[in-house]
């Protein structure tokens, strides 16, 4: 959990940021990915939400570290929930949001939106 700042970037590294959800709904995540040569070197996330939302967002960052962009696209909300040992049905939407954050970040990266290069 936390953030990655521009200052941390080394030459060749890129930082992409994606924000999903909104506080009105009670769930909001800001995901930070550090990428080099199509590989995710580091991932951090900040979450406003319940315990399940925090857990889903945290585990998502753990799942993507070390993966390539292509591999990261394959991460599903089912994988996130499974990594936590399952979620009660009423909390399923938390895993949705975490994966939304990931896919938005990957999409941002591919389109060059919210990307900071060193």
């Amino acid at each position, binding site marked *: *959990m*936390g953030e990655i700042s521009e200052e941390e970037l080394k030459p060749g590294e890129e930082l992409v940021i994606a*924000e999903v959800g909104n*506080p*009105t*709904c*009670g769930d*909001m*995540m*800001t995901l930070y990915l550090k990428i080099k040569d199509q590989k995710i070197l580091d991932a951090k*996330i*900040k*979450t*406003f*939400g*319940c*315990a*399940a*939302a*925090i857990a889903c967002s945290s585990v998502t960052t753990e799942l993507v570290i070390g993966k390539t962009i292509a591999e990261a696209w394959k991460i599903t909300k089912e994988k996130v929930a499974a990594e936590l040992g399952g979620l009660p049905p*009423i*909390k399923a*939407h938390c895993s949705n949001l975490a994966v939304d954050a990931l896919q938005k970040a990957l999409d941002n990266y591919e389109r060059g939106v919210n990307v900071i290069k060193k």
Partner: protein
Amino acid sequence: MKKNQTLKSVYLDHGATTPADPKVIEAMQPYYSEKFGNASSIHWFGKKAREGLEKARETIAARLNADKEEIIFTSGGTEANNMAIRGILDAEKGRNHVIISKIEHPAVLRTCQALEKKGVDVTYLDVDKDGFISLEELEQAITGRTALVSIMHANNEIGTIQDIKAIAEICKRKKVKFHTDAVQSFTKVPLDVEDIPADLISLSAHKIHGPKGVGALFVRKGVELAKQMHGGHQEKDLRGGTENVPGIVGFAKAAELAEQKHVQHMQELRDCFIEKVLQNIPDSVLNGSKERRLCNNANISFKFIEGEALLLHLDEEGIAVSTGSACTSQSLEPSHVLLAIGLEQDVAHGAIRFTLGRENTQEEMDYVFDRLKKSVESLRKISPLGK
């Protein structure tokens, strides 16, 4: 999440329920084992149970300065609320309009919503930012078809205490029945039926260190109520079912044990806690009226973080509270009370309700403050909001 490793356990959710006082359990016990008879039986066993039941009725009545004939025992506050609303509507032929506030307990709100589907007309009065209804709006809402006004005495979430004396007087003047849900206020806020002309009052035992599953409805002499629970002729033929004598005896004992000094104690601890929190934890705000507030209630929103996450953090430290956040409700909507007082949704999501009990100590409140501050800081560090 790892199991609670601290030895400390602080219960601050007395608004949800309370531990039964040992004296209550002691008082109840004989009515399970020796004096176990059905209170309607005319033999010795029944007579013993009947004695306990009627003595308990006198105790509860005395606490309201009411007549014992005016107390009907129920299975709790929810049943009492249902009985009052449905009972009046069914009795008052031709009048099918009910007025309630937007911050009533679900037992009142959902009963009215269910009745709306059957053609009853319901007016939901707005409340201001502190949770008070407007007496002018109430008066204007009353029509020739109004059967009942139901406004809760003290709100369970934000603790706001309505001026039910003024409300009752308006209703009396306009010849409309007035019901108040006093589940949270009974023994904590003065409630004298000679002083407050309410027609119906709901009470509950488990909020005052009594047993769960028992409550009562005060029904003023002369008020006609249509029976909802058909069966035997118990409770003046208003509520069928073998009386829960042990529960009722426990309820009366609990009412007996509730003293003014407890109210003072809880209020002092609570006031000190609120001040400490508001002064030392930034971006925290008290929800509900500061002055006209239930003695043991503190509802505080912590901005930029979410209630359930904070609740579980505190739970890890052995501290029990509740929250109005969406995540703990089945509907994923934040508390209707917090929205009704005009809180922004994200502030409503960060609300925690602390409800103290007479057994809480200053030492416990200091511990809670300490852990609360740390938990709030920890959650704010990982939050995308704020700063």
